Structures are given as structure tokens and as C-alpha cells.
């Protein structure tokens, strides 16, 4: 089993900001838009160097999405940014018509996804954004696992021609992937090979999964850990290959149990290869105020929850 360590913790939104900074320098077509949340999205370095390529939209998210769609006409690559709730649920119809159905090269970049934005509470803690975005035909849905991967994904999506939803967050979390990684859209990343259970994790739950993997190893259980950073298109091949070996699955995500990665994997399973699956996700409830760590624990999103789920899954194997 590979060991993962970290020296530093950072928020994934800062990885986005760093990626935008780099994109600003190397791709003259990249335009950033924001709805009165420049600081939260870490856009300052981009704006400082490219003031003419930043569009402040004020608190008008619907307009921002459709303006982005318009900007693609003429060859711009708009990155429309705000909190995940306002980047999806507030503007779903706009994304659907002006971006997805119109096939526009818009990157919807969403910070503060999930519970771990913390104290602001449930009105801001969207747990349904992955579900919404993955239902849109043609939409690519990416949820990277740490600062470095978020930065790499930000840069990668500028080169991909098509609508993308990129999700990241506010809490500081370990950086454990390579700084110089190349992000490959749609290709699951084998974090650790194993034989007893497949853990499919996304976002910062990948780190929790790694922790869980170590605990399981200590108990003599070999967990295969796969980072599903791209939820759509889903790397079904990687999933099927893994469960063919381990014969049971756990999915781990900071999202509602309904509609997220778990259901994407379940669909693959019931169609192709029947193995028991356990969900680590928020159990169909709204979140609440609290610190990220408190919320992860209260809502069952820790390494310990993954360990328990893995054992349940293994116990259900035929």
C-alpha cells in the first residue's frame, strides 16, 4: 500500500485561484466572472494582472451564467464563479438552456460546496449540486481532491472545449497529490490498489478514504482506493475493473446520499456486475452551522465512517 503524507494544508478554492492566475498568463481567451465574491473565490491575482478580462456581475448569478454563454461567441473561455449553491440551484435553467443545451464552452466554477463551508449553515451548504449538474446532457462534472489537483483541473478544463462544472471548497485540507500533475478529465485515479473492498471517493473525501485505508490495513483489510475526481463522464471501466476484483464497494462524497456519486456507481453496478455497495454521504438532510470538522463528524463523513462502511460492505459479500 502506498503511503500518502502531507506537509501542508490548503483550501481547494486557493488551488482554483492559483490555476486561474496561471491561466490568466497563458491563455488570453480566459475571462473570469464573479458575483460579488471575489475574495472567496481567490480571484485577486487573476484580476490584478488581467483587469480587462474580469467581469464583476454583482449579486446576479442568472445574468452571470447567460453573459458567460454569450462571451463564448467570439471565442472567449468564461469561468463563471460563485458559491456552489448559487452556481447551480440558483441558475439551473440558465445553465441548462444557455450552456448545456447550447453546447457552450463555459466553465462553472463553484466554491463553498458541501457542509464544510461551516458556519454559514444550510442555506449555503449545497449537497445537491453534483446531482443537478450530472443530469445535464453534455456536462462534465469535476470534483478534485486537494489544492494541487484543483489547480491542475482548473488549467485542464481551459483546454477542453465544452461545458464544465468544477466544484471545490472552503476548508483547509491536506495536499497529498503532486504539484506538477497533469489532470486527465474522466480518468479515475488509482490511489491505492487493494483486494477486499473498493472505495470510490471524490473531493476531499479521498483523503478520508486514504486514512480509512490505513486503518483498514491495520486490521488486515486491503482496501482499493480510487479517486473519482470526474463524476461525469464516469470512468465506468475503472469501477468495473475494481469491483470485479474486490466484489464490494463503498462510495464516499460530501453530498446528499441521493443523486451523487453513490447513485452513479449504483447504476453501474445494477446494470453490469452485482456487488453490495455502501454509501458514505449525507443522509438526505440539510446541513447546519458548525466547524467543518464538527460537521464531518456529525454527518458521518469521516475516515471512521468509511471504515465502518467498508466492513459492512465486506460482510455483505456472498
Amino acid at each position: 500500500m502506498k503511503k500518502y503524507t502531507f506537509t501542508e494544508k490548503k483550501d481547494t478554492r486557493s488551488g482554483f485561484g492559483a490555476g486561474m492566475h496561471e491561466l490568466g498568463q497563458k491563455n488570453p481567451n480566459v475571462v473570469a466572472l464573479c458575483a460579488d465574491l471575489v475574495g472567496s473565490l481567490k480571484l485577486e491575482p487573476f484580476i490584478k494582472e488581467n483587469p480587462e478580462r474580469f467581469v464583476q456581475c454583482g449579486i446576479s448569478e442568472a445574468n452571470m451564467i447567460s453573459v458567460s454563454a454569450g462571451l463564448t461567441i467570439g471565442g472567449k473561455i468564461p469561468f463563471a464563479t460563485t458559491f456552489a449553491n448559487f452556481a447551480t440551484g440558483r441558475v439551473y435553467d440558465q445553465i441548462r438552456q444557455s450552456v448545456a443545451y447550447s453546447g457552450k464552452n463555459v466553465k462553472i466554477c463553484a466554491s463553498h460546496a458541501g457542509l464544510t463551508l461551516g458556519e454559514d449553515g444550510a442555506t449555503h451548504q449545497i449537497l445537491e449540486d453534483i446531482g443537478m449538474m450530472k443530469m445535464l446532457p453534455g456536462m462534465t462534472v469535476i470534483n478534485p481532491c486537494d489544492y494541487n489537483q484543483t489547480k491542475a483541473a482548473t488549467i485542464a478544463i481551459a483546454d477542453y472545449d465544452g461545458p464544465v462544472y468544477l466544484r471545490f471548497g472552503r476548508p483547509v485540507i491536506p495536499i497529498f497529490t503532486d504539484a506538477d500533475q497533469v489532470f486527465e478529465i474522466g480518468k479515475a485515479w488509482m490511489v491505492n490498489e487493494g483486494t477486499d473492498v473498493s472505495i470510490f471517493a471524490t473531493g476531499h473525501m479521498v483523503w478520508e478514504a486514504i486514512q480509512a485505508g490505513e486503518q483498514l490495513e491495520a486490521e488486515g483489510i486491503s482496501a482499493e482506493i480510487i479517486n473519482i475526481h470526474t463524476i461525469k463522464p464516469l470512468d465506468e471501466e475503472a469501477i468495473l475493473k475494481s469491483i470485479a476484483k474486490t466484489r464490494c464497494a463503498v462510495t464516499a462524497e460530501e453530498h446528499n446520499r441521493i443523486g451523487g456519486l453513490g447513485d452513479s456507481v449504483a447504476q453501474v453496478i445494477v446494470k453490469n456486475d452485482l456487488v453490495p455497495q455502501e454509501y458514505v454521504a449525507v443522509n438526505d438532510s440539510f446541513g447546519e452551522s458548525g466547524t467543518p470538522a464538527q460537521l464531518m463528524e456529525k454527518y458521518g463523513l469521516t475516515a471512521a465512517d468509511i471504515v465502518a462502511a467498508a466492513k459492512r460492505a465486506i460482510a455483505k459479500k456472498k
Partner: protein
Amino acid sequence: MHDPYHDRDSGSLIQLYYAPIKNNNREMEIEQLEKVAAQVRRDIVRMVHGCQSGHPGGSLGCTDLLVALYFERMKLKEEDGKPVFDMDGKGEDLFFLSNGHISPLLYSVLARKGYFPVPELATFRKLNSRLQGHPTPHEHLEGIRIASGSLGQGMSVAIGAALSKKLNKDDSLVYVLMGDGEQQEGQVWEAAMFAPHHKVDNLIAIIDLNGQQIDGPTAKVMDNRDLGAKYEAFGWEVMEVEEGNDMAAVVKALYEAKSKAGHAKPIMILLHTGMGYGVDFMMGSHKWHGVAPNDEQLAAALAQLEESMGDY
């Protein structure tokens, strides 16, 4: 900035239009545009009749505007006298239809202008057609750059395209048409606030002020009152055109609007039209917002509209 008298659009139906109101050629030119409009109106009623669905009312009301735009006003990319479509539309004027339900009008104008074969109009709203109920680039129909149908989004899209032109140092214009009922959508007012703030002065927006929407007169359904006062309060340059179905008045208004471009403000034309204009029994009522004529009604309608360019 833009001088309306020195940026003649190449390849338009009418060769020159130097606009001094009493120019002798002018009446003839207007007459030709009116002929195009009559044919487009024929197309519209035939299209909605052909699939027994779609929206004739708003389409007929805005025909003069769209014909004036595409056949006279807009600077369009052409090769060998035929329009050439590419998505980016650099160096040419762009038009966006926000009230996508009046798609038959747009399709007819695009086909008659030469963007795609006129006979394709017969596929409107039928299975496997590129002429979807509401316009979409999803089926790669030449001339369509964005999907519309869900109301309230088009002005924002047009603003984005206008900003793109500014970034590209492209001084052509962006036009967008909306409905008056559509003004009830909040997103329209987000865009209305945004455009003056960002000095989007290469944008000419037009509202089809027909006073009608699905459930009845706009004043009864949800009165949006004096839209001119509203847009002025939001910081727009506002023009009101009382005769939106008089070709000469429409062309003149479009010249005037263009002369106002480049002066730090977006431009709004409140265009008074008659819903169903051109077909007597369809005129002035919301009843024909989204109803197709039967065979008899079709015949009655066609009898009022000159077949000037040949039916498809």
C-alpha cells in the same frame, strides 16, 4: 464611433441607403423590404399550419423588425452575395432572439436571407428537424448561436456577446429582441442593471411592445407599466417607436439607434407592434399567441399576404 451613414452593410437586399429622409430611392427600397416581409409572413402562417403548433402572433408582429435588421441594417458576413455563418461572428453584427417562441419568424428570415435552404422551413417542429420549436444551436442550424425558449435569458447572452466584441476590438453591434411579457422575468432586470454599469454601448435591445402575453393583455396579467421610465431609471438610452409595423419607421429607428451606439449607454427600443400583424383576424389579441390556423384560416391569411419570393 459608429457613423450610420458610412458603414454600409455589404450584400443587403438594397444596395444603398443614405437615409436622408426624402431620398427618392428610399420609398422603393422600403417597398422591397415590405415585399420580403409579406413573404416571411406567408412562411410563418404556413409553418405553424404545417405542424399545427407554434406561435404566429408574436412572429407576425415582429416581422418588419427582423426583415429590416437582416435585409437592411445588420452587417453580415457574406461570400459571393450569400451569407456565411460561423459561430464566433467576428466582424459582423449579431442578433439574438430572447423570446424564442417566435422562432418561425427567425427561421423564415434566415432561410430567405440565404443561411439555409428555404424548403427546410417545411420541417419546422417536426421530428429530426433542425428547426426546433425554439431555436437552438444544438442541431447546427446556420444563423442560430444560442438556445432560447425559456424566457428572460437572451439579453444577458447578448450582453456577453457584446462584451466579447469589445474584448476582440470588434466594433460591430449586437441586437437582441425580447417580449414585453418577458419583462416580468427578474433576470431581464439583472441584465438591465448590468449593461449600463459596464457601459455596454454596442448593444441595441428591442422590446416587442404588443401589450399581450399568454393569459391576456400584459397590463392585466402583470402590469409592467411604463417600460421607458424603468429603463431610463436603470440607465439606458431609451427610444420609443410607435409604428413598429411600418417598415419605414422601423428602418429609420434602427438607423437612429445605431447612431446612438458607442456613447457609453446601452440602447433600448420600445417597439409598438400589433400581435398577429398582417393577418386581420389574428391582430391585436393574445388568442393567437400560440395557436395554429386551420386550413380555412390559413387560406384566409394567405389571401392577405403577397407571395413575393415564392412559397417553399
